[in-house]
């Protein structure tokens, strides 16, 4: 029965990929199509308002500069709003201004689409902050990632000097994708009893006569963009495990699908841009295969239960239910875990800290790879980067200078990719080592031994991959953790995006090489396999030694 639950969700996703991918293609293809009629007038009003007259394409440098400056301004505004929270409207619970390092961490966390939360929404944020800071950045960071991914695709698939106009992409991502979709999902969630109100926290009298505080607020609207934008930052501290964020199995499925479907549709969009749907499916298949391996692993591990419990004489026949919600069960939790870390959403409906060692390894691995669907756009960019890498490594074996989509991969591209593949392990492993070496870092670790390593590794993997889920259990609201994860999130987001935009700018100017029978084909099953192999060899083996001391050692010692 549980397998059926999972299968149904996967089938629905598969059915949505093509229509949604096509829709996204139409939104960004900049060729006249029906979506213009619906959204055009409103957008023209917006363009007029923000003063954009010509929307000619930008060079990659201008595009990168535009999105960085936009993000910078949004970050600065958000920081001020958090610090000056006490003067806000919509602050019925009277929240004070947020502490400096926590604010630093929080704004970076949300502008980078990470949503690592070192605070608890119900006790630290006013409703206004939830809406104007948190939700605003949930929209803008998702739209930024999406725009950049589309620009990257344009660089790979078209020829010329420009990769599109950032502000046009940014506006369209809002008006044609995130706003309408969140609107619909919000209403559905409200119908399924997720609260949406500006009333203050309720104080009710329990049956025993004690007074209980029940936090509520504009939850449904945040919940929808939280998943659609693969943000993951919860309204409440316990995120989607909270009964008001995710009240029942149906909302659970809706949330899973809303965070999964856009990243899953992007490879198809890419195929449309590349004028080779097969090429899109190849990328999708590689992601799906990796995903299914991860899902199966976490499900099997959780279903098998915790061997230590067996030793204690506790019935573990239904699997390891520690830290999971009874209303979701093993299947609903395992699927949510696999999807949220694949799509780098980072919302959780169960506590990842309490997953069995191998179960906990899965979300960690997905974040270390950062290519299994991945967050808004970034996952696709990373996967395409690995595709270029696979082409470069193996393409030589057909006796030609490696080429991807008819463009030669030459020193400039390899140098830029080298920066990106170097950055990811650097910003995970170096801070992990530092945290384990220093007293400031060790202070937050609440578990000794291998699980302690897992906690730290998870925290930095989550920050670097801009996932934002926590292994929890880590006492992370300290200056050390706020600053270190803040920096890791920044580097994790911008280094690879800028490097990849530069790759796009470089490929854009290349004279395409015609395809012949001697060409290395990248649109068949063999390449899917090669791509997976490259991801595992280059992306995964790097983390082997560290992981061996974390989850693997833990698994082997409690077996």
């Amino acid at each position, binding site marked *: 029965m549980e397998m059926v639950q999972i299968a149904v969700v996967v089938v629905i996703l598969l059915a949505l990929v093509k229509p949604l991918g096509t829709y996204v293609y139409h939104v960004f293809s900049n060729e006249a199509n029906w979506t213009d009629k619906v959204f055009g007038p409103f957008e023209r009003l917006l363009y007029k308002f923000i003063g954009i007259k010509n929307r000619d394409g930008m060079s990659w440098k201008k595009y990168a500069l535009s999105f960085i400056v936009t993000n910078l301004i949004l970050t600065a505004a958000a920081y001020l709003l958090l610090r000056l929270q006490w003067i806000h409207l919509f602050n019925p619970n009277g929240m004070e201004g947020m502490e400096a390092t926590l604010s630093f961490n929080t704004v970076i966390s949300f502008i980078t689409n990470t949503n690592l939360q070192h605070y608890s929404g119900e006790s630290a944020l006013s409703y206004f902050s939830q809406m104007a800071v948190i939700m605003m950045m949930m929209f803008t960071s998702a739209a930024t990632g999406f725009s950049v991914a589309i620009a990257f695709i344009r660089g790979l698939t078209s020829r010329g000097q420009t990769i599109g106009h950032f502000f046009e992409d940014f506006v369209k991502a809002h008006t044609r994708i995130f706003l309408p979709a969140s609107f619909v999902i919000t209403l559905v969630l409200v119908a399924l009893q997720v609260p949406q109100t500006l009333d203050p926290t309720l104080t009710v009298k329990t049956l025993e006569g004690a007074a209980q505080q029940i936090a509520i607020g504009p939850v449904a609207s945040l919940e929808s963009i939280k998943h659609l934008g693969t943000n993951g930052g919860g309204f409440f501290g316990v995120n989607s495990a909270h009964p008001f964020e995710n009240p029942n199995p149906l909302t659970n499925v809706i949330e899973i699908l809303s965070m999964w479907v856009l990243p899953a549709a992007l490879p198809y969009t890419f195929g449309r841009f590349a004028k080779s749907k097969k090429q899109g499916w190849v990328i999708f298949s590689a992601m799906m295969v990796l995903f299914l391996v991860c899902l199966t692993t976490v499900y099997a591990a959780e279903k098998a239960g915790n061997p230590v419990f067996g030793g204690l004489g506790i019935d573990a026949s239904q699997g390891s239910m520690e830290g999971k919600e009874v209303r979701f069960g093993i299947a609903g939790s395992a699927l949510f875990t696999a999807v949220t870390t694949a799509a780098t959403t980072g919302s959780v409906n169960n506590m990842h800290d309490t997953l069995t060692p191998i179960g906990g390894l899965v979300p960690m691995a997905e974040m270390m790879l950062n290519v299994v669907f991945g967050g808004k756009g970034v996952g696709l960019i990373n996967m395409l980067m690995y595709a270029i*890498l696979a082409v*470069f*490594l*193996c*393409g*030589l*074996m*057909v*006796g*030609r*200078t490696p080429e991807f989509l008819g463009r030669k*991969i*030459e*020193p400039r*591209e*390899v*140098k830029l990719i*080298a*920066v990106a*593949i*170097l950055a990811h*392990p*650097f910003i995970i*492993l*170096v801070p*992990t*080592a*530092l945290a*384990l*070496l220093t007293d400031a870092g*060790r202070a937050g670790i609440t578990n000794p*031994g*291998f699980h302690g*390593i897992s906690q730290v590794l998870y925290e930095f993997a989550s920050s670097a991959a801009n996932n934002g889920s926590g292994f929890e259990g880590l006492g992370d609201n300290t200056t050390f953790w706020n600053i270190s994860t803040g920096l890791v999130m920044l580097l994790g987001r911008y280094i690879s995006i800028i490097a990849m935009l530069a790759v796009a700018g470089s490929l854009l100017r290349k*004279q395409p*090489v*015609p395809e*012949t*029978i*001697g*060409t*290395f*084909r990248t649109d068949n099953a*063999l390449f899917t396999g*090669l791509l997976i*192999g490259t991801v595992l*060899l280059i992306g995964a*083996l*790097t*983390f*082997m*030694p*560290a992981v*061996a*001391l974390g989850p*693997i*050692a833990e698994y*082997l*010692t409690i*077996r």
Partner: protein
Amino acid sequence: MMTNNRQKRMLTADAVQRALKESLLKLNPVTMVKNPVMFVVEVCTVIVLLMTVFPGYFHSEDRIGFNLTVFLILLFTVLFANFAEALAEGRGKAQADSLKKTKQEVMANKLVEGGSINVIKSTELHRGDLVIASQGEMIPCDGEVVEGVASVDESAITGESAPVIKEAGGDFNSVTGGTRVVSDWIKIRVISEPGESFIDRMISLVEGAKRQKTPNEIALGTLLTSLTLIFLIVVVTLGPIAKFVGIELEVPVLIALLVCLIPTTIGGLLSAIGIAGMDRVAQYNVLAMSGKAVEAAGDINTMILDKTGTITFGNRMASEFVAVGSHVKSAELLNWAAISSLKDETPEGRSVLDYMKRNGLPFDTLGAEGGEFIPFRAVTRMSGIDLPDGRQVRKGAVDAVRNWVLSQGGIVPDDLTGKANVIASAGGTPLAVAVDKDVVGLIYLKDTVKPGMSERFEQLRQMGIKTIMCTGDNPLTAATIAKEAGVDGYIAESTPEDKIEVIRREQAEGKLVAMTGDGTNDAPALAQADVGIAMNSGTTAAKEAANMVDLDSDPSKIIEVVAIGKQLLMTRGALTTFSIANDIAKYFAIIPAMFMIVIPQMNALNVMKLGSPYSAILSALIFNAVIIPFLIPLAMKGVAYRPMSGSRLLGRNLLIYGLGGMLAPFIGIKLIDLVVHIWV
């Protein structure tokens, strides 16, 4: 000269000795730093050496034996890599040496103002000087013939013993220093300064003195460096992480892990592969001006081939006899044609008799017994025989024979020119046969497609390469030959401008084009093409414009050059894949070994069931070192290449070097461990 003693150069005792010495010299960190992967290994070697020599400073007194072993293995890893590079370079040096021998100092007959001759050393000649070289003398310099006709023995450069005709004007006016005049004399204008001659350039090219890394090599080098940095991060951070759970990792163990993970195999062999690739081209007697040109050859999409000499033998096989004037096509014509060719050993001459015998045509050569053969001369453009009865038989170019007949007061038949033109316009070459004052007929020399050409073009098609034939023939003849040879396209009545046009058109579609050429008017097209191969017999302008020179002047060799270019890239890709795939097994050897003492359960990951932690680490390190010399022959020879489609080629190589690369170290490390475990 070069072809013969080159093949077996690789493993002569002398070459090995030289390479061994070189590999020690290459330990110099200044040279080593150019190869970041191996430089990291060298630094690690020094660290372990210090730990072995000064154990007190590192608190490693109880590990001296292990550390010493690690040091030695690391040292050999570096030396093996150096040896591979030195060996590849050594082959080039050996060639350079044999070339230098031909560059003996010779005396030149310099023509000074006033017409007198001044004998000076060849090294004192300058551009623009005029020299005279006569029969038996060595040509002292590179130059252009400005006067005279002579046959020249170019075997020192080409290895081809048959002399070639050099004459002023036209496409055969360029001569190379170090070649010998066999007959007649020529006046030469010097075109190179001392030390810049063709042989000088050849020497510096094969010596690899000015070897520049190709773009692909740079890109791969960048990737290997970044992988090295990644693993450096992995290993450096592992110490503190392990310390958190109470595992103190020794530095030599971490170094072992690092050296095993970084791509030392490809890092050590990368430059050897590049040098050996250039060398393989040289073994085909083709001189590539840069490694980039060789790599570009692998990327070729379109090949432009001259019909004559490349696809066909050239106009030289007799295929028909045409009577002229009052003569009828009869035994008489056949007899004279046979008699004129009886002692003619040129391919054209032989083809006359071959054709008659093959087709059972009757002929009688009795009258030629005891006649005196008159060989072909560049000046007369005729050969023939003076019969004992006094009659003179001549065979040769139509106008030469006509002039000869006229000079004896004979009469030339009216239809000679017309019939000769018919043959010429059909793409053939007419040879006139005359006896004294009488022209008896024409021999129709026809182009014949070389055997095996259509198979080769089929192979090229499988590699995704399009062939375009260029010919001066009329469209009809061109179409016939094109069909017979199986090329993909042809340009009839082509001019050099047409070639440039085709090259530009193909390049505009993003294709890379290769072509061969020899004439001065080919030079712009050779320069425009991505890979231009000039014939050594061609003009200096052509050779300057091309990025490769074929010393044997065999235009069909372009096909081999493409194969070598592909092989070079494939070898690099195959060894990179192999090297990276090796890491999986090395992880399974070293990771459990590192942690097993503190976490005994880690033995579950010891899938190879290696004897002990230290034996596992040493075995992985030893495997990592010895795989380099094991692969040297492959790096030198290149991976086996047969023309096939990209997908099949990939599948095959992935199976061998990808899957093989994953499995081989599992077996290798296990076998080494069986031995090493006896001691540790």
